[in-house]
C-alpha cells in the first residue's frame, strides 16, 4: 500500500505519470469529453482562438438534451448548428433529441468505464463516479481547449471520505442520502475535494439509485465523487461494452482531509426547502405545504425506478396537482412503457414529455407561474431556477413527490399508498 486516494490514482493514470499527490498540477488527457446544447457556444470559442479540427473526435460525445424538442426557433437554430458541427468534425458519439440526458445516456451506452476520466461541460458530471470513474464538470472555454489539445490542466484535489452504513428504510431512497449529506455538511462542504464513498450501503443500492449520490455531489461543491465499483457494476457494463478496464480503488492508508459517516438505516425522507439544496428538513417539517406542480425527472431523479416508485404511489388514484414525468432517457421511457409504469402514471393524470432535462433549469416543459410551488426529484431549487423567481421549489424523493401530486400538498407517501 502506498496511500493513494482514488483521485490521485485516476489522475495519475490519465496524465501518464507514475504517481501523483494532491496539489500536483497535471495535464490530464481524459478518456471521454462531452457537451450538450452548449456545443454551439463551445464551437464559437474554439473557432475564435483559431481551432480547426477536433484532435480526437472519437473521444467526444454530444447529446441534445437541455431544451428538447426545441421550444423556440432560437433553440432550434442552436441544435441545427450543433448537428452540422458534429457531421463536419466526425464527432464519434452523437445523441439526437429524445435519446436522453447526457449523464444517463453515456452511462447506458457504456462509453465510460471504471478508472476512466470524463470531463463534461456540465456541472453534474460528478455523476460518473457511480461507475467508479473520475467525472468532473468543466466550463465552455475548457471544453474548447480540450477539443483542440485533448488535455486540460488540473490540480489533483484533496480528498474527503464519506462512509455510508446500513440499509435504507422502506420509503427512503438514495435521494434522501444525498439531501442528508447536504443538510449536515452544507453546499460548500466539499471544498472542491474528491469525495470518495465507502461503506456497506453502496452495494444495497440498485443501478438506478446509485448515480443519484455522485450526481448531487455537484451541489456539495465536489470536484468529483466516487463509488467503489462492485460486481453489480461489472455486470451492468458487460451488456454495454467489450472494452477492457481495470477498476481503481483507493489504498487503505490513503490520506483523507475530512471524514463523515452516516448510518442510513434510520434515515427519514428529506425535503430541501426553498431556495437552497442544503436547506433540508425531515419530511415531518414540510408536511402540509401546498404545491401546484410535481416533477419527476432530471439526471438526478428520472430513471426507471424513480418512475416506478411514482407509479406505485399514484396507481389507481387521481392526482390533484399537475404531475410532469420526464424520463431521463429513451431506454427508461421504453422500459416504463413495457412494464405498464407509464400507463399507471397517465391514468392517474400525469403528463409525459420527451426525455431530456425538461424544466429543471427553467427552459420549458413546466415553468411555474409566479407564486406556484413545485416539488421535484431534481437537484437544484435555487431562486429562479425553474424560470420564475417567486416560485418556490422543493426537492424530495420520488415517493414524496408523487404522493404530494395526489394530495396537492406535501404529504407522507404511506398515507396515500394505504
Amino acid at each position, binding site marked *: 500500500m502506498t496511500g493513494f486516494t482514488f483521485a490521485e490514482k485516476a489522475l495519475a493514470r490519465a496524465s501518464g505519470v507514475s504517481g501523483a499527490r494532491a496539489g500536483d498540477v497535471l495535464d490530464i488527457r481524459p478518456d471521454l469529453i462531452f457537451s450538450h446544447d*452548449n456545443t454551439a457556444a463551445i464551437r464559437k470559442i474554439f473557432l475564435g482562438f*483559431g*481551432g480547426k479540427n477536433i484532435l480526437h473526435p472519437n473521444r467526444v460525445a454530444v447529446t441534445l438534451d437541455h431544451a428538447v424538442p426545441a421550444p423556440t426557433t432560437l433553440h432550434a437554430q442552436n441544435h441545427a448548428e450543433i448537428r452540422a458541427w458534429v457531421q463536419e468534425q466526425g464527432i464519434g458519439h452523437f445523441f439526437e433529441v429524445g435519446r436522453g440526458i447526457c449523464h444517463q445516456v453515456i452511462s447506458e451506452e457504456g462509453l465510460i468505464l471504471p478508472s476512466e476520466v470524463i470531463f463534461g461541460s456540465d456541472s453534474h458530471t460528478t455523476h460518473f463516479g457511480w461507475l467508479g470513474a473520475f467525472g468532473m464538470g468543466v466550463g465552455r472555454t475548457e471544453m474548447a481547449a480540450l477539443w483542440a489539445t485533448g488535455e486540460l490542466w488540473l490540480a489533483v484535489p484533496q480528498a474527503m471520505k464519506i462512509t455510508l452504513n446500513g440499509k435504507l428504510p422502506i420509503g427512503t431512497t438514495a435521494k434522501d442520502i444525498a439531501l442528508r449529506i447536504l443538510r449536515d455538511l452544507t453546499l460548500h462542504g466539499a471544498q472542491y475535494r474528491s469525495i470518495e464513498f465507502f461503506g456497506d450501503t453502496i452495494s444495497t443500492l440498485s443501478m438506478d439509485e446509485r448515480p443519484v449520490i455522485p450526481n448531487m455531489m455537484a451541489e456539495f461543491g465536489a470536484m468529483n465523487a466516487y463509488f467503489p465499483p462492485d460486481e453489480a457494476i461489472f455486470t451492468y457494463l458487460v451488456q454495454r461494452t467489450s472494452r477492457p478496464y481495470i477498476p481503481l480503488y483507493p489504498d487503505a492508508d490513503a490520506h483523507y482531509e475530512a471524514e463523515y459517516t452516516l448510518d442510513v438505516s434510520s434515515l427519514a425522507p428529506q425535503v430541501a426547502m426553498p431556495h437552497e439544496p442544503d436547506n433540508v428538513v425531515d419530511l415531518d417539517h414540510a408536511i402540509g405545504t401546498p404545491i401546484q406542480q410535481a416533477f419527476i425527472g432530471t439526471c438526478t431523479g428520472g430513471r426507471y425506478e424513480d418512475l416506478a416508485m411514482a407509479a406505485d404511489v399514484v396507481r389507481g388514484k387521481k392526482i390533484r396537482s399537475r404531475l410532469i414525468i420526464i424520463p431521463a432517457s429513451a431506454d427508461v421511457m421504453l422500459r416504463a412503457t413495457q412494464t405498464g409504469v407509464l400507463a399507471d402514471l397517465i391514468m392517474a393524470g400525469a403528463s409525459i414529455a420527451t426525455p431530456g432535462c425538461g424544466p429543471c433549469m427553467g427552459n420549458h416543459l413546466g415553468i411555474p407561474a409566479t407564486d406556484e410551488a413545485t416539488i421535484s426529484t431534481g437537484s437544484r431549487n435555487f431562486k429562479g431556477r425553474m424560470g420564475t423567481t417567486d416560485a418556490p421549489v422543493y426537492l424530495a424523493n420520488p415517493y414524496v413527490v408523487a404522493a404530494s401530486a395526489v394530495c396537492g400538498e406535501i404529504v407522507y407517501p404511506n398515507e396515500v399508498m394505504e
Partner: protein
Amino acid sequence: MSEHRCFAYGDNINTDLIFAGKYTYTLRTPEEISAHALEDLDPTFAQTVQKGDVIVAGRNWGNGSSREQGVTCLKWSGVNIIIAESFSGLYFRNCINLGVHPIVCAGLSSKVKTGDVIRIEGGYIYHNGDSYPIPSLSPSVQAILDAKGLAPMLASRFSDKG
C-alpha cells in the same frame, strides 16, 4: 495601484442568480448577456455597474451550474476582479480561463458595503485602513490569467505554429 468600486453580496450566491438558466441557449452577444447579469439577485446591477468595478462576496460564490456566462456576464459588464471568502471550484476555474482574477480573501466581505472603494497595490487589498493579502497563483495558472484567459493563450499558440 488601482481603485475599485465594490458591489457587495453574501454567501452561496449561485450561478442561477448570477445568470439565469433560462437564458443560456438563446442569449449570445456580450451586450445581451451582460444586460441580465445578477438579474435575480440585484436588479440594479446591470444599470449601475461601471468598468473597473469589483464584486466582493461571501463564501462559495458561483456554486451550481458550470455555465460560463456566470463569469462572462460580469466580465462584459466591466468586472475583471471578483473577491470572495471562497469560490466554487468550477467557478474559480472559469474565472481563470476567462481572464477574470478570482481573489480568495478572508474577512473582507463582512466589512465592505456596496459603493465602498477598495485600493489594490503591491499584492494587497486596502479598505478603510485595513489590508488583506492577495494569494498568489501557481505559475501555470498565473500564465493563463496573464494571457487574459485560456482562449487568447491558445490563440497565440496556434498562431505561433503558423
